[in-house]
């Protein structure tokens, strides 16, 4: 038996574990296949698919390029505005919650309770918040803003907490040693560190919120979703095509821009 073979036989063999996991996965997979019934598929599906593709390839250019309140451009700007304002509201609301759930700032029970609250806020889907806020403000972009604001809180405060817990405390120590007061330490030691981190987190969340905001229109909370739904329900595939093209271009641009800004912010 040469060296290579010895190594080969020396490899750990936990076949029982692997086979058990594989077996469970197979059973789950087979179980999940039962969810799909092909009965719902209609003959018309294929022709609709062809129509959708031809609609995307021949978009309604008039809709795409006009700038009045019905055009795609205006709707996209409205979607951006919803996402932007929502992000700002969410990031302001998240700051106190983040400090309240940072275990090195407040006592453990308080941190635990705040985290539990955040988990509950995070589990409710955005659309449910949307439907709830429509009851408060009536349909329109305002409901969308509030929805985006509250859905952002969960993730934002979690990322904030990470930033707070990763603060470089050596800077603070050296400031103490040269005799800075607490306010000076906060102003020159903590704020500069947190400002760019928080800004980077906010930009990241804005990117995600833009996608959410484009969907919220489906429940009537403003933005580009509602016209998309109307166009689809009335089979105007050219309009659907132009809306989708506008949306995809916007999301790609925002994603590229936000990646660039964030890498600049983090690298300094």
């Amino acid at each position, binding site marked *: 038996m040469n060296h290579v073979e010895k190594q080969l036989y020396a490899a750990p063999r936990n076949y029982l574990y692997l086979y058990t996991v594989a077996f469970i996965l197979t059973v*789950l*997979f087979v*179980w*999940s*296949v*039962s*969810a*799909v*019934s*092909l009965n*719902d*598929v*209609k003959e018309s*599906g*294929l022709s*609709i*698919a062809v129509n*959708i593709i031809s609609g995307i390839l021949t978009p309604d250019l008039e809709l795409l390029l006009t700038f009045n309140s019905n055009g795609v451009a205006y709707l996209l*700007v*409205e979607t*951006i*505005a*919803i996402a*932007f*304002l929502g992000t*700002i509201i969410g990031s302001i609301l998240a700051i106190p919650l983040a400090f309240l759930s940072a275990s090195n700032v407040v006592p453990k029970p308080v941190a635990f309770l705040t985290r539990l609250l955040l*988990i509950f806020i995070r*589990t409710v*889907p*955005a*659309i*449910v918040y949307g*439907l*709830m*806020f429509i*009851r*408060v*403000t009536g349909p*329109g*972009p*305002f409901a*969308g*803003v509030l929805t985006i604001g509250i859905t952002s809180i969960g993730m934002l405060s979690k990322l904030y907490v990470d930033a707070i817990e990763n603060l470089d405390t050596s800077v603070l120590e050296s400031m103490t040693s040269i005799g800075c007061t607490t306010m000076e330490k906060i102003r020159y030691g903590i704020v500069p560190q947190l*400002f760019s981190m928080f*800004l980077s987190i906010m930009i990241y969340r804005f990117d995600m919120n833009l*996608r*959410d905001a*484009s*969907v919220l229109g*489906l429940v009537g909370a*403003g933005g580009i*979703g509602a016209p*998309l*739904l109307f166009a*689809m329900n009335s089979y105007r595939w050219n309009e659907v095509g132009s809306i*989708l093209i506008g*949306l*995809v271009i916007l*999301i790609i641009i925002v*994603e590229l821009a936000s990646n660039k800004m964030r890498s600049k912010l983090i690298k300094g």
Partner: protein
Amino acid sequence: MYDKIFPPKKIQMPNGKTVLEKRSRTPLVIILIMAGLFFSIELTNFDINQIIKNGYKFYMIIEEMIPPKWEHLPNIWTPLMDTIKMSLLGSVLGSLAAIPFAYLASSNIVKSNVINTAARIFLSLLRTMPALVTALIATFVFGLGTLAGTVAIFLFTLSYVGKLLYEQIENAGMGSFEAMESLGMTKSQAFRQAIFPQVLPNYLSTSLFCFEGNVRHAAILGYVGAGGIGLLLDEGIGWRDYASVGMILLVLAITVFAIETVSEHFRKKLV
């Protein structure tokens, strides 16, 4: 650009040297945010008075949700299971389908710029589509029901896992791959034996993570008629039966939490 308009401040050091301090960008950032805020408030009819006046309605809805209506539980099981099945099936198929796309998109395996770029553009186009919009389109093509939801989850998983997988393949060590190629293996054989074992733990972990997120996504797909628990949510809110909505949300939270715990356990083992 910014430094040219506002030239850096010169500081004379005691030993005669001059140091340039760049002007802070903070005022510019604040001005941009303020301008953005102003236009957004104009565009979205933001009105703080309305929150003060009608805000109590939001809390009333939450108050009605507690305590949740336990009698509603038997109606929830089937749609909940449908949601889990949809996300499981979509995630498994999507992450399997991601492998060939990631293979084509990674520039160190397939040495063709055209194929790489095409595969990458395809993946990122898929990724930009919000899952709910994909589901909406799918309901037109595949009819109302869980199949449409599964397709939407499948496409989302394909794009997400595909992107992360090709980045991992590109960062994998190429030594053993080259050695195997020089022994006379074909490219796909060498990929299977040298690259795949390297990226496998990360790939499984990414797929599990995606599955976690998909359960959340699948919960709302029912809203557009793509099957699952979303339809019940929509009905509950439509009929202002908030106690039932509270029950659904509670069950959903427990399910998501359980799935996240299990998958986190396996992800920690993997990486």
